[in-house]
């Protein structure tokens, strides 16, 4: 693991917005430039701090959506009652600045040497760090087999849809659309459950490495399901972001 990316004191730095890409009606990817940025590992996140004119701070964490070596980017879902995400998804313009610190995290990370096969399970905007892992895998020309099971409300709520539809060699992408399905949809159409995991997950005997990211209840269901299928808890990395967002 690249120790330089996780060691040392964190300092708040000024980030400048370089690009804005609407991924869905509620989700936007924000490209950032940060002078002196030392790089990151796939799966890490940033802490973002917004300061109001009266000095009030709001801090949030966002997974890094771009691969190590690519321009830094985060993907933000708008939460209607949120303090930070409506600003980031609606108000922000190229050239705007805000504070961030990072990269943060040494647990929910994947690097080339960690192997697999990889099983990636995303609920809603929990796809962001898993997309980072898939891009890292592709850029490193890593041939480890990977399966992504992505739970979204509908086709229109699938983040990075064009990229996921293009796909990558050696990566299977499987969706479950929990609320609305397009005409003729033959894929999964329910919340992720143990039966679905049993059908999609690599057998435990293959020594897979699983990454699960999404709302807390989603992650709990998936992690318990994988352990019941024989996955050692230490091979199931989890990241929960609370009750917010849809899956």
């Amino acid at each position, binding site marked *: 693991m690249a120790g330089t990316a996780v*060691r040392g004191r964190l300092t708040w730095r000024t980030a400048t917005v370089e690009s804005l890409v609407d991924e869905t009606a509620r989700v936007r990817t924000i490209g950032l430039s940060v002078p002196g940025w030392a790089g990151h590992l796939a799966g890490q996140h940033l802490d973002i701090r917004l300061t109001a004119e009266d000095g009030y701070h709001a801090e949030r964490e966002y997974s890094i959506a771009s691969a190590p070596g690519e321009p830094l980017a985060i993907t933000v879902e708008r939460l209607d009652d949120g303090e930070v995400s409506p600003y980031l998804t609606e108000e922000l313009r190229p050239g705007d600045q805000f504070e961030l610190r*990072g990269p943060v*995290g*040494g*647990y*929910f990370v994947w690097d080339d040497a960690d192997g697999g096969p990889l099983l990636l399970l995303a609920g809603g905007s929990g796809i962001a760090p898993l997309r980072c892992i898939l891009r890292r895998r592709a850029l490193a020309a890593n041939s480890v087999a990977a399966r992504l099971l992505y739970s979204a409300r509908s086709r229109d709520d699938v983040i990075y849809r064009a990229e996921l539809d293009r796909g990558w060699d050696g990566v299977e992408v499987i969706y479950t659309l929990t609320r609305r399905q397009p005409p003729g949809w033959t894929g999964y159409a329910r919340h992720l459950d143990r039966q679905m995991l049993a059908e999609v997950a690599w057998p435990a005997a293959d020594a897979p490495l699983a990454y699960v990211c999404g709302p*807390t209840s989603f992650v709990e269901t998936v992690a318990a399901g994988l352990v019941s299928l024989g996955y050692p808890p230490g091979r199931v990395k989890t*990241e929960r972001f609370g009750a917010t967002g849809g899956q």
Partner: protein
Amino acid sequence: MDDSAVDGNAIGGLLMEVFGAEMTAATGTCAACGSSAQVAELAVYRPRLGTVVRCRTCDNVLMVFVAIHDVTCVDLRGLARLD
């Protein structure tokens, strides 16, 4: 862990600020029930006041962080070990 909880990944930045090192991959041992887990897997609640970290096995409060005027107060009495 109920839906109001996140997990220890979310406080990686706070922990790095307090301990000066990456801590989400460290192992915490509960002083009440003795179970051990990686910090990233612990239950984290964030009321306005601060941050509360609980054991996933017995719900014991392991760590509390409260920031007052840019000084972070830390209570680790619920932890038997952190390494």
